């Protein structure tokens, strides 16, 4: 596994005196879908935010797409064009239309012409199944639609890796599936994905591997089948019983 897409090696991170990531060793292969779960505050968001440099690590090494990102002089903006991110709170830019949101980075960062960028944007909107919302402002979209635009916006940069931080946690139940369906398509097309989610159905169907975190540590790492059938740690059992009981 020399050419993992993402490799954490003994990664440690503190916020002040509080250690939020402890001795993380993980590798995500190209095309692999890794689901990260665990109780609130266990460090899941911090873990995936390290991958695109939104958080800096303080110990160990983190290699993304063949490049160590802790080396000084590494260009974070260049890295981020190859790693897309989708947030719990959608984060569409409210003063821009859907189309403008999607075209922004391709035009400003990649230097595409507006015509090319618009063509790609419309293709992506069809792919996330909202071709008719291009001219709308985010405020006029449902949460599920906004999150699908956010996915299209990230895909517009043609990333090699997609990070998802609880992409359905802010959604009404009836909208969760429309977002998970788009993510499932993406996984089938071979996208490398790290997904923080409590949607265990999605994990079971789509993930290649499930990672369970607690208090800044990776407590368990297994295939979905193994993890759901027989979690090894007490904490994972406890977590699963809480999350699956409703």
């Amino acid at each position, binding site marked *: 596994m020399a050419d993992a897409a993402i490799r954490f090696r003994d990664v440690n991170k503190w916020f002040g005196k509080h250690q939020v990531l402890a001795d993380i060793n993980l590798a995500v292969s190209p095309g692999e879908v890794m689901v990260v779960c665990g109780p609130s505050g266990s460090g899941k968001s911090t873990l995936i935010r390290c991958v695109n440099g939104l958080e800096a690590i303080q110990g160990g090494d983190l290699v993304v797409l063949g490049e160590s990102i802790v080396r000084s002089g590494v260009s974070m903006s260049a890295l981020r064009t190859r790693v897309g991110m989708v947030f719990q709170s959608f984060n569409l830019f*409210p003063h821009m239309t859907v189309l403008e949101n999607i075209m922004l*980075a391709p035009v400003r*960062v990649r230097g595409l012409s507006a015509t090319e960028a618009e063509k790609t944007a419309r293709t992506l909107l069809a792919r996330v199944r909202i071709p008719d919302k291009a001219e709308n402002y985010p405020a006029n979209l449902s949460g599920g639609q906004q999150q699908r635009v956010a996915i299209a916006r990230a895909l517009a940069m043609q990333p090699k890796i997609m990070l998802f931080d609880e992409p359905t946690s802010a959604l009404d139940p009836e909208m969760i599936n429309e977002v998970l369906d788009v993510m499932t398509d993406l996984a089938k097309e071979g996208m490398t994905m790290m997904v923080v989610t409590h949607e265990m159905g999605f994990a079971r169907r789509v993930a290649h591997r499930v990672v369970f975190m607690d208090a800044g540590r990776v407590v368990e790492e297994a295939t979905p089948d193994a993890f759901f059938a027989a979690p090894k740690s007490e904490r994972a059992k406890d977590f699963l019983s809480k999350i699956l009981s409703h």
Partner: protein
Amino acid sequence: MNYQFKWSVLWSGQSGSWLLQGVITTLEISALAWVLAAALGIVSGALRTVPFRPLRAVGTFYVEFFRNVPLLVWMFFWYFGVPPLLPRAAQDWIFNHGAEFWAGMFALGVYHGARMSEVIRAGILAIPRTQFEAAVAMGLTTFQAYRLVIVPIALRLIVPPATNESLNLLKNSSVALTISVAELTFQTRQIETYTAKAVEALTAGTLIYLILCVGIAAVMARVERRFAIPGLIARGG
């Protein structure tokens, strides 16, 4: 009461043309100073929120330095203090080209830029941090994220307090009379001197300021509606 009103002093003799020149000068000095204040305010207000301490310090220094000294002192500073520091030829040139106007404009712009800075900073701080993160997460540099996302959103949020600051700037342009800029207040005082009709002259000045301010407020209200962010609580109109 023995005072004899004589409103005709406002349109007889040179009064009318003085008032008109006064209004024009007030608008010119205010408009230029406003552009300077907006530019300085946006840059320094944004600097004060960036994730890089030395740049934040630069922004803070500008704001604290310029807003904590009275405008009048800045007027004197730019008019009496700065020119002697310049080479002889530059001094001559400046004094032949309306030095008091430019000194007044700089003083007004730099002072109100520091106040505008606070307004813009407050606008930026009202934007969730995750908007900035989303912008840089797609590959924009910090500068691009500010220029294309953060500042445009902030500017749309701050139209009401920025209107307030703009009106203050217009009214404060009257301080420039202390360095002999022939703006509106200067001209009303000139009419008073020539006609000894203080009430009439000052009433005219007051009404003109009122009309200018109401006009600006109306324009800004249109701007606010035109650029309102869809989904935020709709305001009037």
